[in-house]
C-alpha cells in the first residue's frame, strides 16, 4: 500500500500537504482534458487563448508581471479570450474566401454531416463554403496559420526535421499507426461513396415512380392491369404547391411514336435462388436476386435511360419472352451478371449463357450498361413469363417520364397522380426523391464509420503522445540550449507541435495511398428505404478527392491532439533545470 501511495505522491508523514497535492494533481488532470479540446484550434489562436486558461504561464512574453490588484488577472484572461476569438474569425474568414475561389464540386458528404450535427438556423447563418466544404476550410486555416507563424517567428524548424530524420525508425513506427487508421477510414468512406453514387445515378430527374397506395416498397405494391393504362392520359397544369406551370405537364411519348407513351409497366419480384458452384452442385447457401418483368423493353430502356452493350451482340427479349427451346429470355445488369457468373466459374455471364431461376432455365440475350445504377443488380424478362412463373399477375410498378423531362415536372405530375387519380389509389414519387430516400442507410453507415474511426484514432493518438513525450525527455538539454540561445517559449511549443504534425502527415499520406487501393473494386450491400423495403445492390467502391481530404484532415486532428500536451510540457521546462 505504501508503495502505491508513494507512487502517486502521497507522503504518509505529511498528510495534509499530500492531500492538497492530490487535489492539485486532479485539477491538472481536468485542465488537461480541456486542453485537448483546445488543441484543435489553429496555433495562433491557441497561443493567444492559453493565457485565459493558464494565466500564470508566460507564452508570448518572457515573464509575467505580478498582478497588483484583483482586476489584472481576469482582465488578462478576458484580453486573451477576445484576442483569440478575433484571430479565429480572421483566419476562418480568410480561408472561406480562398475556399470560394477553389474549383470544388457542388455536392459533398460533408454537407450531410454538417447538416446532421448543427441546428438549421445556424446553418443558414454560415457561409456556404463553410457548410459544404468545411474540411477544406479547416485545412486552409491550419495551413495559413502555420505559414504565418513560420514567417513571423523564427521557429527552429530545421532542428525538428533533423530529429525526425535521424530517428527515422521511431518516426516511421509512430507514423505507421496513423497509416493504418487513415487507410481504413478511406476504404470505408469510399464504400459509402460507392453506395451513394448508386443513388445519385439511378434516378432520372424527369421520371415519376408509381406504386400502389400504402406500399412500402415495390415488393408490396399491387397495381391491377386494366386500370393503370389510363394513367397515360393524365396531365396537370399546377405544381405541387398549387402554382401555375408555364405549360401543362403530361406523360411523354416515345420519340417518333406519338401513340406510344413513355410509361414502363413492371412486375418486380425478389427471387430466392440456391448458390451453385461451378460443378453445378448447390453449396447450401442461398441468395436473393431481383427480377423485373417488363411489358415493353424498348419503352423501359427509354424511360430508365438504359442501353444494351453494343459490342457483344446484346438484344432485348422477344415479345414471346422465350426462345425456341422454351428458355426464358432475359437481359442482365452488369452486377448480377458478375454474381451469377461466379456460380459458373466465369467472371461474368455473357450473351448465350444459361442459368436456373425458379424452376425454369433462363438464357441471357443481352447485358445492360448499368454502371453505377441499382439496375445493375437486376434481371429483366417479359412480364407475362415472370408473372406466370411466380404467380404475380398484377404490375407492381409504373415508371413514367414527364413531357418536360425535368424534376419540376416530375414533382408536379407525381403530386397530381397521388391526389387526383381516381381510378386507383396511387403512391407517386419523383424517381430522384425515391432513390434519395433509399440512401438513409448511407447516413447510418457513415455514423458507424465515424465511430469506428474515432475509436481507432485513440490508438494512434496514444502512440504519438508516447513518442513525443519520450523524444522530449531525451532532448531536455537541447531545449535548454535553445532557450538560452534566445528562442521563446511559444517557438518551442510550435516547433514540437510541428514535429508531431509532421509524423501525422507522413503517416496520413501513406494511409491515403494505401486506402485508395480499394478504388474500383465491387462489393454488395443493401439499400433500405425503411421498414419492409430493401434492395441488394452491387456497387463500385469510389475514392474521390473529398475522401482524401477527409483522410488528411483526420490525421491532422489526431496529430494535434496527440502532440499538444507533450509540446506544452516541453515549453514549460525551466532553462536551468533542463541543463542540469
Amino acid at each position: 500500500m505504501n508503495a502505491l501511495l508513494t507512487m502517486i505522491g502521497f507522503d504518509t508523514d505529511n498528510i495534509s500537504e499530500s492531500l492538497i497535492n492530490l487535489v492539485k494533481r486532479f485539477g491538472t488532470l481536468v485542465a488537461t482534458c480541456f486542453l485537448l479540446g483546445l488543441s484543435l484550434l489553429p496555433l495562433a489562436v491557441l497561443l493567444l487563448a492559453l493565457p485565459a486558461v493558464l494565466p500564470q504561464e508566460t507564452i508570448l512574453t518572457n515573464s509575467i508581471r505580478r498582478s497588483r490588484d484583483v482586476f489584472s488577472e481576469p482582465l488578462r484572461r478576458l484580453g486573451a479570450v477576445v484576442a483569440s476569438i478575433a484571430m479565429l474569425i480572421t483566419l476562418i474568414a480568410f480561408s472561406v474566401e480562398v475556399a470560394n475561389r477553389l474549383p470544388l464540386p457542388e455536392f459533398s458528404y460533408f454537407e450531410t454531416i454538417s447538416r446532421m450535427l448543427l441546428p438549421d438556423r445556424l446553418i443558414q447563418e454560415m457561409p456556404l463554403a463553410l457548410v459544404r466544404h468545411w474540411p477544406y476550410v479547416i485545412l486552409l486555416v491550419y495551413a495559413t496559420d502555420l505559414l504565418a507563424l513560420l514567417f513571423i517567428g523564427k521557429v527552429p524548424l530545421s532542428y525538428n526535421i533533423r530529429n525526425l530524420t535521424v530517428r527515422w525508425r521511431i518516426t516511421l513506427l509512430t507514423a505507421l499507426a496513423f497509416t493504418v487508421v487513415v487507410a481504413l477510414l478511406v476504404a470505408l468512406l469510399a464504400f459509402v461513396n460507392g453506395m451513394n453514387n448508386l443513388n445519385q445515378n439511378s434516378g432520372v430527374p424527369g421520371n415519376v415512380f408509381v406504386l400502389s397506395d400504402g406500399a412500402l416498397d415495390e415488393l408490396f405494391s399491387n397495381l391491377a392491369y386494366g386500370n393503370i393504362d389510363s394513367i397515360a392520359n393524365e396531365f396537370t397544369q399546377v405544381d405541387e404547391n398549387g402554382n401555375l406551370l408555364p405549360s401543362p405537364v403530361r406523360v411523354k411519348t416515345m420519340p417518333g411514336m406519338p401513340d406510344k407513351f413513355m410509361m414502363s409497366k413492371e412486375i418486380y419480384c425478389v427471387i430466392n435462388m440456391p448458390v451453385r458452384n461451378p460443378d453445378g452442385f448447390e453449396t447450401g447457401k442461398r441468395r436473393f436476386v431481383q427480377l423485373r418483368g417488363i411489358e415493353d423493353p424498348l419503352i423501359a430502356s427509354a424511360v430508365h435511360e438504359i442501353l444494351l452493350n453494343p459490342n457483344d451482340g446484346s438484344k432485348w427479349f422477344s415479345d414471346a419472352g422465350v426462345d425456341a427451346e422454351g428458355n426464358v429470355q432475359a437481359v442482365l445488369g452488369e452486377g448480377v451478371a458478375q454474381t451469377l457468373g461466379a456460380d459458373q466459374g466465369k467472371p461474368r455471364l455473357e450473351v448465350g449463357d444459361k442459368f436456373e431461376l425458379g424452376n425454369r432455365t433462363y438464357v441471357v440475350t443481352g447485358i445492360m450498361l448499368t454502371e453505377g445504377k441499382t439496375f445493375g443488380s437486376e434481371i429483366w424478362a417479359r412480364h407475362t413469363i415472370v408473372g406466370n412463373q411466380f404467380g404475380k399477375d398484377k404490375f407492381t410498378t409504373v415508371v413514367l417520364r414527364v413531357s418536360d423531362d425535368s424534376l419540376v415536372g416530375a414533382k408536379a405530375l407525381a403530386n397530381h397522380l397521388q391526389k387526383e387519380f381516381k381510378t386507383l389509389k396511387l403512391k407517386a414519387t419523383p424517381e430522384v426523391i425515391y432513390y434519395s430516400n433509399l440512401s438513409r442507410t448511407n447516413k447510418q453507415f457513415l455514423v458507424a464509420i465515424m465511430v469506428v474511426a474515432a475509436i481507432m484514432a485513440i490508438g494512434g493518438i496514444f502512440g504519438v503522445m508516447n513518442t513525443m513525450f519520450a523524444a522530449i525527455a531525451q532532448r531536455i538539454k537541447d531545449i535548454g540550449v535553445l532557450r538560452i540561445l534566445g528562442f521563446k517559449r511559444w517557438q518551442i511549443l510550435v516547433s514540437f507541435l510541428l514535429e508531431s504534425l509532421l509524423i501525422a502527415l507522413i503517416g496520413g499520406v501513406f494511409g491515403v495511398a494505401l486506402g485508395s487501393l480499394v478504388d474500383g473494386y465491387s462489393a454488395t450491400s443493401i439499400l433500405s428505404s425503411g421498414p419492409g423495403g430493401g434492395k441488394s445492390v452491387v456497387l463500385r467502391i469510389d475514392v474521390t478527392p473529398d475522401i482524401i481530404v477527409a483522410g488528411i484532415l483526420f490525421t491532422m486532428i489526431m496529430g494535434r491532439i496527440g502532440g499538444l500536451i507533450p509540446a506544452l510540457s516541453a515549453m514549460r521546462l525551466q532553462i536551468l533545470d533542463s541543463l542540469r
Partner: protein
Amino acid sequence: MFLIDLSILFGISISTLTILCIVLGIVLMPPFYLILLALEKTLLVAQWAGFSVIRFILLVFRSLQRNLLRTALSYMAIYVLVSVVVMIWSVLSFLDGITTEKQEDFKVLITEKFQIPSQMPPSYEQRLLSIIDELPPEYRMKNGEMDVMTWAFVGGTLDPTKQTFENSIFFFCMQPKKFPTMMSGLEEFTPEEMAELNRLIDLMEKDKKKVVIGTGRLEKLQKKVGDRFKMVSLNYKDLEFEFEIVGTFPKGSRYDESAVMHRDYLYDTLRDYEKRTGMPHPMANKCLNLIWVRLPSKEAYSALAAKANESGSFSTPAVKVETESSGVGSFLDAYRDLINGMRYMVVPAILATMALVIANAISITVRERRTEMAVLKVLGFTPGMIMMLVLGEALLIGVLAGGMASSVMCVLTQAQGGVKFPIAFFPAFKVPYEAISWGIAIGAATALAGSLLPALSARRVKVSEVFSRVA
C-alpha cells in the same frame, strides 16, 4: 428487409456499450495499477518465493512503474482496442452461431420456394399435415399438431390519412395456443409472467378480436390495456380490423415491439370481404406466410424436405423446407461483404494498430534503458534473459489490459441479460465468457508481435560499446 433498420438499432446499442466500456477503462486505471501491485505482493509472499525466477519476474513488474504515464497510455490504448475487437468478434460469432445447424429437436421453416415475401394459400397447412402423416412415425412431430405453427403478418395503421411510424403496427398473426410451445426465449420469463401469458392466451382463444401488444409499441401508439381501436391494413388492402387490447408482454423482453393477433380473425375478415364484394380478396390465397414445424431429428427434416419437393402437392406456389438457421443464413447473404469487411479488414487493422502502439512504447523503453540493460549484462545476465525482460513487460500490459477489457465487456452484457435484438426471433446478444480468453489472447499476441523487434535489439546491446564512451 426491415431487419436492416432493426440491425441499425442493434448496432447503436452495441456502440453505446463499447463506448461505455471504454469510459469504464479510464475509471479502471487505478485498479489496473492495484492489480499489478497485488500480483507483485503475492509473488513476494508466495511459498516458493525462494526461487530467483520470482525475483526476475518482479523486475518486470517494477519496470512498468518506471514511467507511469507511459504505462497508462499503453494500457488505455490496448484496453480500448481490445474492447472493440472483442465486441466485433462477439457479434460475428453470434451471427455464426445462429446460422449453424442445431442437431436435434429443431424447428423447420416452410416458406414459398422462390419469392419473397413468401405467400402461400392457407390450405397448405392441411396439405403439410397430410404429407407428414405419410412419413414413418419416428419422423413425425412428437406433440402432433401442437408442434406446428402458422404465421401471417398483418401490418396496418390507425390513421390511414397520415401514416407514420408511430401509428403503425405490425401484427404476428397466429394461433395463440401454440405460442407457449413453439416460441423460443420463453425461459426468460418468470413463472408469474408465464401464468399471465397463459391467461391472456385463453382470453384470445375465446375472443378472436383480442390482441396482445408489447409495452414499447403500446407507448408509441399511445394506447393502454383495455383500449379498443380500429386498424386499416396496409398489406391487406381494404381490410379493416377492430381490436381490443387485452394485455401486454413482460416489459424489457424481446417482445417489446411485438403484437400478436388471432389468425382466425384474419381468415374471417377475408371471408367477409368475399361475401361483401362477391369476389375473393386478392390476398385470400396468399395469407399464409410461414409454417413452423418442430421435428425430432435431422433425418426427419430430410425426409420431409424430400417429400415436399417431389409430390405435386405444393405446386403453385412451390415451397421450400429449410432449417431455421439456413433461413437466417440467406438473409445474411446480402450482408456478406459487410461482414467479411469487418472480419478481414477492420479487425486486422485494429490488431495492427495495437501491435504498433505497443511496439512504439516498448522501443522507447528499450532505448531509454540501454545502459541499464548493459549493466545487467555486466552483472552476468544472458542476452536471452534481457530479451525476456522486455517481452515480459509487453506481455504483462497486454494480458492485463486485454483481460480487463474483455471482462468488462462480458460483464456489461451478461449482467443486464444481453443486448436485446428487438426482433422476437433472435436471442439476446451477449458477449460469451470465452471472450475473456480472446481478450487475453489478443492482448498477449499483439504484445509479443509489437515488442519482438525492440526485444531483439535489446538483446544485442553490446556491453563494451556502451561504456567506452565514459572517459
